[in-house]
């Protein structure tokens, strides 16, 4: 299973699928559709059925039930795009076999080092096979690891017919990182009773709670008057903004909150 995961994952991360917040198309970038096409071919190759990419780049497929029991359909999802915060072009994954637990130099020339001082969890991976970046790009494990894991799990189920399961649906979707992933997701077409995204971080993460979220845009308008006659007339918009900001409790800003503590930024 490990070799298959490495092969699939390193293939996917080499394709640039960064989304683009400023685009008005779905998917927001053509690279995502290219990855969807590669994945559609792989899904067919391992024996998945109803493999379809819709006009918005949502790829869905079915693993038919192999049990006589009538049980609800489970879905598994991962997203095609990678984050926009850092470059995701020319990703060059590095494989570290049997990691020794010490600091890892990702790029000697640029002096990029993965260190236990900055990332205290690092030594706990001693003995693992790690995949890292070459220090110049993001890796795209978010969420191509999820894609590789779902693919590999489906292939395993297909190759182990003795393991009984109900109908399984799989979807790979665009534009999660720009918050538009579900916008054009056709829940009826997906036709599952419930689903899991494979999109978390470290081992064991299981999440079913998120924030409630809203965004506010506030524009302050001043009133510009010649300073000589400005008395009681001029309004400085910067001062309005400061007066507004000072109304908020400082202890609730994100730099002071964690866990269930909540924030207004």
């Amino acid at each position, binding site marked *: 299973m*490990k070799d298959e*995961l490495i092969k699939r994952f390193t293939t996917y991360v080499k394709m640039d699928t960064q989304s683009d917040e400023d685009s008005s198309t779905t998917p927001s970038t053509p690279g995502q559709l290219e990855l969807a096409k590669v994945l559609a071919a792989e899904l067919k190759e391992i024996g998945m059925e109803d493999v379809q990419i819709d006009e918005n780049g949502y790829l869905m497929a079915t693993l038919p039930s192999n*049990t006589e029991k009538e049980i609800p359909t*489970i879905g598994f*999802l991962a997203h095609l795009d990678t984050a926009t*915060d850092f470059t995701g072009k020319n990703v060059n994954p590095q494989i570290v076999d049997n990691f020794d637990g010490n600091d890892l130099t990702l790029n000697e020339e640029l002096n*990029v080092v*993965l260190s236990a001082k900055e*990332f205290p969890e690092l030594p706990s991976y001693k003995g*693992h096979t790690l*995949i*890292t*970046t070459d220090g110049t790009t*993001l890796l795209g*494990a*978010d969420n191509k*690891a999820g894609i*590789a894991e779902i693919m*590999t*799990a489906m292939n*395993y189920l297909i190759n182990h017919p003795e*393991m009984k399961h*109900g109908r399984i649906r799989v979807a790979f*979707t665009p534009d*999660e990182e720009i*918050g538009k*992933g*579900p916008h054009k997701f056709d*829940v009826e077409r997906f036709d599952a009773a*419930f*689903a899991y*995204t*494979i*999109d978390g*971080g*470290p*081992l*064991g993460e*299981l999440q*079913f*709670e*998120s*924030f*409630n*979220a*809203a*965004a*506010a*845009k*506030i*524009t*302050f*308008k001043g009133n510009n008057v010649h300073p000589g006659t400005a008395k009681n007339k001029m*309004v400085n918009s910067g001062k*309005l903004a400061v007066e*507004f900001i000072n*109304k908020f409790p400082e202890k609730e800003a994100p730099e002071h909150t964690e866990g*269930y503590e*909540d924030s207004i*930024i």
Partner: protein
Amino acid sequence: MYYIIRDHDRSKFEDRKELVERFVNEIKEKYGKDSVLFNLNDQYYNMRDRIEPVKEIVELAKQAMENLDIEPVIEPIRGGTDGSQLSYMGLPTPNIFTGGENFHGKYEYISVDNMEKAANVIVEICRIFEEEN
């Protein structure tokens, strides 16, 4: 100026939005109604409200992890996932680990050993669900 408003609790979330609006109104009262342009939109909601009624799907994932000697780490996400919106669209969708660390930057890395565990959790969820139904 842009503000984002976040709260795990729905009614406190509504309170926070009201607070922002109240502060805007205070500025307007003092400096005139044209002194502030204000626009507020909801982005997504806490999926807990939609997953709690079908909590057994969280239990199923937890059981799958425990069967594989993985300790489930159940924590609220300080952000959103596709699952937050999908759960509100009628598809309850919790989120499971991939095994990755430090997403979104050059220090991002992943353990292949833990990727294998994630794939096994997927298989185990399918297996248990058939066995128990």
